[in-house]
Structures are given as C-alpha cells and as structure tokens.
C-alpha cells in the first residue's frame, strides 16, 4: 500500500497549552487508521489541521506525496479530504436533500441530487429518504446524512470524529459494514474514538496521542483493550468496584409520566414509569434525543406535571419546583454542563451556590454566606480532583471533563437520597470517567437511589443493577443488567418501538449483502 497522507512534525500551540507537539504519522491508501487519545490529548486540533480549519504553527503534510496545506475546509474537500463531525451541522427544518445540497460546493439540481442520495445511500447500506425532514430523523439517520454528504464528493480520506457515540449497537454494525466497504474500494479512513473494542474490531493501524504528543503507534488487532488503555492514559486503570448491598425500600417512584417536549424537535415522554430502591442504580440507555432531556427535566422539577407522577418515598412531588425537590433529597445533574448545569461566566463558588445553597446552608436570612460557599466549592475541587487554579475561576474556563467532575461532585457532596444524572461521563477522559463512575457506585452503596441516563452502554453495564431503554419517549420495563447481551440491549433500544432506528433484520441483511460481495 502507498501512503495517502503523511504528517511530519505538526505543532500547534494555543496560549498556555501545546495542543499538538511534533506529531508525525502516515495513513496508507485503503487503511482505517485510528487516532486514539483521552479528551484534551489533541485529537480534535490534529484533525482540524488536516481538514483546514486550523493552521499548524510548524510542520508539513503530504497528500499523495504532494505538499498539502489547506487554507480552509473547502480546499481540503477539493483535495479529497472529507470529515464527519461528532456534532452534526444540519438544519432540522430542511429535508435531507436540501441539507446535503447546502453542504456541497456545486450542488446538482434537486431532482438529480435526490436520485444520487438514494443511490449512494443504498449502495453503502445507509438507506435514506431524501424527502424527509431532518428534524424527524433519529441520531443514527442524521449521521447517515452527514456521511452521504461526504460520499457524494468521492473522498480519498474520510475523517470520522467519535462516530458511534450516538448509535445503537445495530447501527454501529451497519456503520462498520459501510466503512469496510469504503476501505475495500481504496478510501482511507481516519477514525477518532476512545472506544477501544471498536478500534480493535475495525482499524488496521493506530496512533496514540497523549498531551499533544505521539506516544505510540501499533496494530490495534494485536493489542488488548487494556494495553491500549494504558498506552492512552499512561497508567493502568482500575475498573470500578462496588460492595454488594441489599436494596432497601422504594425511594423514587415514577408512574404515568407524559410530558410535552422541551424544544420543537424534542421528544414527548409517553407514559414513562419505573421505581428505584435505596442502594440501587438504574441505568437508562438510548440514543440521545429519545426523551432523555425531557425525563431529566421532569425529575428535576424544571418541568412540572400532575403531582402523582413523581413520588419521593411515597410523597407526591410531581407538581413541585426544583428547590422543593432538592429539599426532599432528590438532586439532578443535567447533560449540558455549560449553560444548564453551570452558568458559564460565574465562578465555581457561585456555581456551587446555584444548586447547593439550600442543602449546604449557604444563606442566612436570604443573605449569601460567601465564605461557606467558597469552602463548599473547594471541597468539590478537592474531592473530585477538579483541575483549576481555584474556586474564583469562571466555569467556562474549565475543560469539559473538569467541569463535569465539578458538576457531578457538587450534587454528590450534598449527600442526596436520590441522584439523577444525564450523560455523566460524556466527553470526559478515561481516568476521570472511572472516578465519576466509582463515585456513583459509592453513593449507591451508602444507600442512595441512583438513576444514570447514558448513551454509553459499556458504562451502563458497568454501574447498573437494572437496565431500561428509552426510545422515542417510551421506557422499556427495567431488567436486571447482569447477563444482558448486546443483542438483547439492542432490541430494547431500537427494535421494540420505532422502525426508524435501525432494526436488527435490516442490519443483518446489510451485513449479509456485504459479506456475499466481499468474501
């Protein structure tokens, strides 16, 4: 195989941090190359340089042996480099075809474009109806739109940033089939992920970044996941442990919860019900956008409803606002850290007051006890290893992972009887994620009821006693997490209610077609 892209000594510094330091590696034609690293290791900066969004301070790149220095993404696309971002840039109120057309340099007429979308999407096993509104699509289907948009431009190198974070297991299978097909046709793929098992299953080569530097490259098929993790983190990780404990009485009881959507393309909760006992962790899985935000909002009290829908130790609280629920021992941590769980421009001390002023006794006759508030913030920083100069720093100055530790720590240190967290380790590096999961397990073993809403199935399997799936606003009946297979989870997540999310038959069908064609 010949080299498609080679990087030599790429360096990029931002004030106070060297994002990439002398990074060199090569991607061969038809190779699926993994870029591995924790959050903040410099993966995003590196691919932004390849895609022309960021200019390197020094170093050089060659594409097909010729010097390559794209001044902007358009130049990168013209050279055959395409990218699928982790966060989609789609207009929900427009159709699939219109969205694809908007992202193209010289889009063909709409009729022809629709035909091409249909052909390409079917050829690669990613069926899409070009006439549908993007707002009505599942996260997996939205990703297909982004991928098809790239494929229509016939790329030589496809960059994919954390593509499976929003997919069900079946959808992951479909995606991998597509990527393997592209590889067989000679397209190279730069695959960014921190999911080690995926990388071992999919990739031919891997480059590991830590603190901006290349710390190793290997063939991931020859390494174990633990070895890769050690390479990535620089130390051996201890998986979370928990002391087995008998579950107590029912603490949180939810029944008949039906809510309006939070925003225009949000999802309505449909008659959601479950209960959690003291000491139990219930994991709710599902692809984002299936009612997770609505569920958290209904539990936190940001949206209120009939009083009987939510009960804390038998007391009906469905009609009570957030502070009244906090006083009764139920605390929540929303998914969106900046702007929801924390106010970006306020200091950590003030963000501690935000949800902690009642239970931590941070006011006296309505006046703030600044000293006590600072102490509370310092306790969180200390206990959860939040890396920051001090509690006076504005929340927006913290990295995502550090702020997440602060937000989760803020709720846990208030010693809740019930804790509800949404995506507790989203965008958090492996070491911090392990610490957060351990903290959740510790909280439960002290007798709290914990509800973990997450897209990360490995995480849910690691911490949950019981598992339920949220799909299109419906919650499946909780089942014991131990012994559940990925197949069963996939059925709970995707197959049960909604045909738009990939159904397993379709996945198998596509897999068969692919295997027939290439074996």
């Amino acid at each position, binding site marked *: 195989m010949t080299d498609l892209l080679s990087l030599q000594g790429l360096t990029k510094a931002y*004030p106070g941090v060297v994002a990439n330091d002398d990074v060199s590696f090569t991607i061969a034609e038809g190779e699926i190359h993994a870029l591995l690293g924790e959050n903040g290791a410099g993966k995003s900066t590196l691919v932004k340089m390849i895609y022309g969004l960021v*200019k390197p*301070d*020094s170093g050089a790149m060659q594409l097909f042996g010729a010097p390559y*220095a794209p*001044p902007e993404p358009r130049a990168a696309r013209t050279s055959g480099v395409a990218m699928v971002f982790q966060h989609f840039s789609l207009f929900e109120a427009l159709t699939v075809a219109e969205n694809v057309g908007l992202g193209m340099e010289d889009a063909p007429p709409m009729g022809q474009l629709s035909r091409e979308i249909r052909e390409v999407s079917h050829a690669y096993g990613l069926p899409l109806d070009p006439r549908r509104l993007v707002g009505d699509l599942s996260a997996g289907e939205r990703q297909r739109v982004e991928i098809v948009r790239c494929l229509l431009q016939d790329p030589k190198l496809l960059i994919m940033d954390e593509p499976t974070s929003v997919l069900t297991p079946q959808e992951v299978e479909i995606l991998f089939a597509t990527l393997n097909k592209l590889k067989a046709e000679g397209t190279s793929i730069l695959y960014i992920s921190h999911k080690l098992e995926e990388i071992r299953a999919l990739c031919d080569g891997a480059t590991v970044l830590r603190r901006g530097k290349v710390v190793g490259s290997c063939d991931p098929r020859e390494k174990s996941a633990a070895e890769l993790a050690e390479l990535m983190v620089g130390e051996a990780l201890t998986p979370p442990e928990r002391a087995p404990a008998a579950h107590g009485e029912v603490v949180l009881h939810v029944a008949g919860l039906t809510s309006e959507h939070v925003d225009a393309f949000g999802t309505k909760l449909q008659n959601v019900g479950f209960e959690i006992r003291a000491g139990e962790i219930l994991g709710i899985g599902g692809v984002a956008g299936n009612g997770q935000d609505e569920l958290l909002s209904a539990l*936190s*009290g*940001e949206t209120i409803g009939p009083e009987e829908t939510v009960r804390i130790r038998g007391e009906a609280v469905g009609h009570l*606002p*957030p*502070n009244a629920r*906090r006083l009764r021992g139920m605390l*929540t941590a*929303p998914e*969106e850290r900046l*702007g*929801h*769980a*924390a*106010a*970006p*421009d*306020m200091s950590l001390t*003030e963000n501690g*007051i*935000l*949800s902690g*002023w009642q239970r931590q006794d941070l*006011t006296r006759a*309505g*006046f*703030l006890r600044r000293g006590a508030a600072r102490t509370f913030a310092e306790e969180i920083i200390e206990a959860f290893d939040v890396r920051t100069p001090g509690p*006076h*720093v*504005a929340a*927006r*100055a913290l990295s995502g992972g550090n702020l997440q530790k602060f937000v989760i720590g803020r709720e846990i240190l208030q010693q809740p009887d019930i804790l509800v967290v949404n995506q507790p380790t989203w965008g958090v590096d492996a070491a911090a994620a392990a610490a957060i999961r351990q903290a959740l397990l510790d909280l439960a073993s002290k007798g709290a009821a914990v509800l973990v809403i997450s897209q990360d199935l490995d995480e849910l399997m690691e911490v949950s006693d019981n598992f339920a799936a949220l799909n299109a606003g419906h919650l499946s009946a909780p089942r014991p997490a131990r012994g559940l297979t990925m197949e069963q989870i996939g059925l709970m997540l995707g197959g049960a209610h909604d045909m738009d999310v990939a159904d397993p038959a379709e996945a198998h069908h596509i897999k068969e077609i692919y295997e027939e064609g290439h074996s």
Partner: protein
Amino acid sequence: MASFRLEKRPTPSQAWTWATPVLAVLLTMVAGGLMFAALGKNPFLAIKTIFYDPVLGEFAFYYRGQLLVKAGPLILIAIGLAMGFKAGIWNIGAEGQYIMGAIFGAGVGLAFYPTEAWYIFPLMVIAGAVGGLLWAMIPAILKVRFQTNEILVSLLLVYVAEQFLAAMSLGLLRNPEATGFPGSRNLQQFPAASNPELWAGTGIHFGVVAALIAVIFAYILLSRHLMGFHIQLAGQSPKAARFGGVNPTALVVFCMGLSGALAGLAGMFEVTGPAGQISINFNAGYGFTAIIVAFLGRLHPIGILLAGLLMALTYIGGEAAQATMQLPAAAIQAFQGMLLFFLLGVDVLSNYRIRLNREAAA
C-alpha cells in the same frame, strides 16, 4: 504581516472592568477636543468648560446644585432598570412609569389641598411608587401571561402615559385658580406636599437622598443577597437559572415592579421639587437617559452613581459651553454620543485581550 486579533479571556479582567470607563472619558476628551478644534473653538477651553467649570469654576456654586438635581432622578431610575437588565428583563418604559409616579404622587397631594399635615408627603411618596409600579405591571403581566415582548409594551405605554399627562394637566389636576392655563397647582407653594432643597445651594432634595439609598440597597442586594444572585443568574444563563430553582414569573414581576416603583418615585420627587407642578411637558426624558446611565455604569450600582453624575455633568457643562462659547447644541450632543460610543467600544477589553498576530510565512 502583522495584524490584530481579539482573544477571549478565560475570566473577565477585573482591572479592565474599572479602567475602561476612565479610558473612555479620556478618549472622548481627545476626539471631542479634535471636533471642537475643527469647529474653530479652543478645545482645551471647551473641555474645561464642560468638565471643570461646573464643579470647581467661578460660577460652580450655581452649577453644583444643578448637578445633583439632574443626577438624582437619573440614578434612581437607572438603579431600577439595571436590576431588570441584569436579569434579561428589558423595561424601556421608565419614562412612562416616571410620569405615572408624578401624577399619582401629585394627585394624592392635591387631594388634600389645602390641609397641612405631616402624613401627606409620606402618602405621596407611597402613591408615587405605586403609580410607577402599577404602570410597569402592565407589560410584566402581559409578558408572564401571554409572552408579549416587554420592550415593545413598556415603550408604547410611554406614549399612553404622555397622553394621560396632557389630559390630567388640562382636566382633573388643572389648577382651578389659573384661569385656563394648563398645569396643576404649584406644589412648592403647598408646604405639606413639597419636596424642598434640604440644604440651600446643594441641590439635595429627598429624591437625591432616595437615589443614594437605592444605590446602597441595590449594591447589597446584588452582591450579598440570594435574590441578587438569582437576578444575575437569570440574565447570564436562563436555563441554569431554571435548574437552580429561579421562578421566571416571579423574577419578571419583581424586576419590572422594582424598576417601575423607583421610576415612579423619581417622578414624584421631581414634580414636588424641582418641577413644582404637573404640566403637559413635565417629563424631560430622564426615563430614557437613565437607560444610557445604567449601561454607562455597566449595571453596577456604584458605576451607576458615577455615570449619573458624569451624565449630569455633560448636560450642565454642555449647556454652559453653549452659552459661554457659542458651541452649537449638536456638537454637545455629538460629544455625549462619543462618550457612549467609546465606552461600549473599549468595553471589549474586559472580556477580550488584543494580540498582535504575526502570520507565519505560508
């Protein structure tokens, strides 16, 4: 090739937050001086006439009193507005609430005419605050119940209040002894209902005292009290405020009510003091100028105190410069405009830093 780039500071710079207003005043003096020079006037004399003479010049004894008379209502109204602005609630109709406060206050006083009793003035103070508050409740309740835009409703109600003022001047509150002239009795000649200068020559009346109390009250509320914390939280991050348990409805009612009541008080103190009577053209734009004062003082109570004094100074100094140097009124207005322009312009420095950018040879 070198170029400039703005880089967001991780945490807003405290030093620049306080230095930018000073820098803005200095830049205004330089640019204004150039403008005065272009008009053929001595720029140094003009700047001195505007900024120095009213405070320390030969005739300062006259101007100094004027300074507080003008600054008092500006500060009182701006303090109330700033509370709402901090919470993201935009009361633009302080002028109307100011008018309604004056009418309510004067109306209660005139109802007692000619009784002399100690309780009349306190009742008028309460009536003035209630008048402004009720007028502000119209946009507040419409916003809470029907999601109307408080900016439009409060602004349009200014013009309704002006019509009401004219009707009152010509009708119900007209001085029955004035043989047909519009306007109410002169409250300065009704001791139980008047708001006199407390110390001769200082310009200090009850309204100025109220403004100072409002500054202290607002400072404590914003920096020490949970309510002030929630106000700032709601303005910076509405979703985080909801999560933090802030009730948006209560906040709208509180902020609109407070700003309306303070504007009403300002109107009431003005009509019983410096203005003396309800008349068709009683209002002089304090309610609108106070919006500028609130932002000039960057919504901080102490900043508003200083900004109110500075704004009053440019008005009085500007009038003096028109009278003694024959500077055109438009030049003075342009000068005041420059002040706001530079203030907002250099404001960027407290959140961003300037970096010199040297492009690597491509």
